[in-house]
């Protein structure tokens, strides 16, 4: 079975860090969409 740490209920630093990571990932996904739009408009439309 996977190893888990004992939970300190008030320590949410891991969770908050993960959620911040998601914000960055959303920007990455938006950047990919922007690249597709630019490529389409300039070269493939």
């Amino acid at each position, binding site marked *: 079975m996977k190893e888990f740490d004992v939970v300190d209920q008030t320590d949410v630093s891991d969770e908050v860090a993960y959620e911040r990571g998601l*914000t960055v990932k959303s920007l990455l996904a938006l950047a990919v969409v922007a690249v*597709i739009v630019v490529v389409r408009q300039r070269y*493939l439309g």
Partner: protein
Amino acid sequence: MTLLHEFSLGGKWLLVLCVMVGIIPLLAASYQFLLVALHSGRNHYGKVGDHLPRTAILIPAWNEEAVIGASIDRLMLLDYPRERLRICVVDDASTDDTPKVVQAKMLEYPGNVVHMRRENGGQGKAHTLNHGLAILLEDDWMEALLVMDADVIYEPPSLKKMTRHLADPEVGAVTAYIKEGSRPGNYMTRFIGYEYITAQAAARRSQNVLGVLACLAGGAQLHSRVNIEAIGGRIDTSSLAEDTFTTFKTQLAGRRVVFEPHAVVWAEEPGSIDSLWKQRLRWARGNVQVTKQFKHLWFRPQPGHRLGSFTFGVFWFCLFLLPVIMILISASLVALYFIDFPLSWETFHLLWIMAGLCYVFTTLFALLIDTDTSRHTWKEGVLFPGLISITIITYACFPRPARWCIHNATELMGFHLTHGQIHLAILFAYVWLAASMPVAWTARLLEPKRAGRYLSPAIVYIVGYGPLLCGVTFNSYVKELRGAAMTWDKTEKSGKVAMPA
């Protein structure tokens, strides 16, 4: 003549508008994913605290001898003080050895396991839960209630991660992230695994941001005792969506419902189209009932809860009405084709370009939200809308390279597409959104046949898992309109759920 001309012009733009209605669910889906990005700043972590309430775990069980023993063993491994845990199995008149297994566990874990026998069973999950709830509310021991399914696996830290939110008295209930855990899985469980990233990890985070939750997961709902008492001390039995009813009632009583994405619960989900169809038909019919029951709430903001907010209403109805929207788009495009072909072609392009952009953003972001799940479900994630829809998206977004490919491919095969064939292909693309649902249904019909073993999965990949779910939703409208009996088709479980190492 002028009047006729104006009527025709007005009709044309009305048809264009009907097609453009299809952009609303696309924008809603993208907006929902954009809200996920705000979850780092708008969540409930600022109000959590040390909180270990005496928790009763209520497990409805009917003929669960294969899984109930192992479930109890795993629950005893939870990172939670044992003296504050009580596992209550409500045995819904099981005819197998469920009672014996539970009684053996009572001896193994004295004081932690309770067997509640219901002699007249078979009325459904809500009735079973109410039997257990009535007993639990008789004394003061229970401070929190966790409702779960017999076969799900809670990761050891999950309960503690959930109860910490109940330290805030404004929170009435907490739900966890259900992940598909069938091992070995198949194509269907991988589709569901990906679907749960979008429907839970993403959608419920966005609902946290909005401050309103649509549904507590049936297999992972933690309530404070105060909340259970405030909603009447019982679960609604009038519908097939008792989880959603409970979620709505909690929020109507003025308490928040929180999704804890880092509390992970593994569940075995359907491995065939038929069992998926039955499960989702029950859920979809439940949603029809919820929509009707709470009709006074939609798009009517009220103090105390956010169920009537405009955004929540748009999210709810975009899913609820998606099959209708798909039929409307196809019908309007076909009508426009005969009235004004160039306009229909432009409209079609615009819709599918929007679909393409939303598809890239939501799929890519969904795969990044839960990379552990994405590692084995990315193919199903990419093919979620189906190969045909992806082909149409590619053609709409990149017409020049697509035409070049088609031209060379047909030349290689030694034939040229005629004008008639090209227009037949265009009509096919126009009709596809509506047609994808009955085609998905044929995958279910073929499944029990010999050829269906290979053909049905192939159809799902070609048609898409999304249209399959839309087909189920459409079926739910029909069943509700006909007033079909509300049967509780229990999802078949094999006990092959496992937590990955």
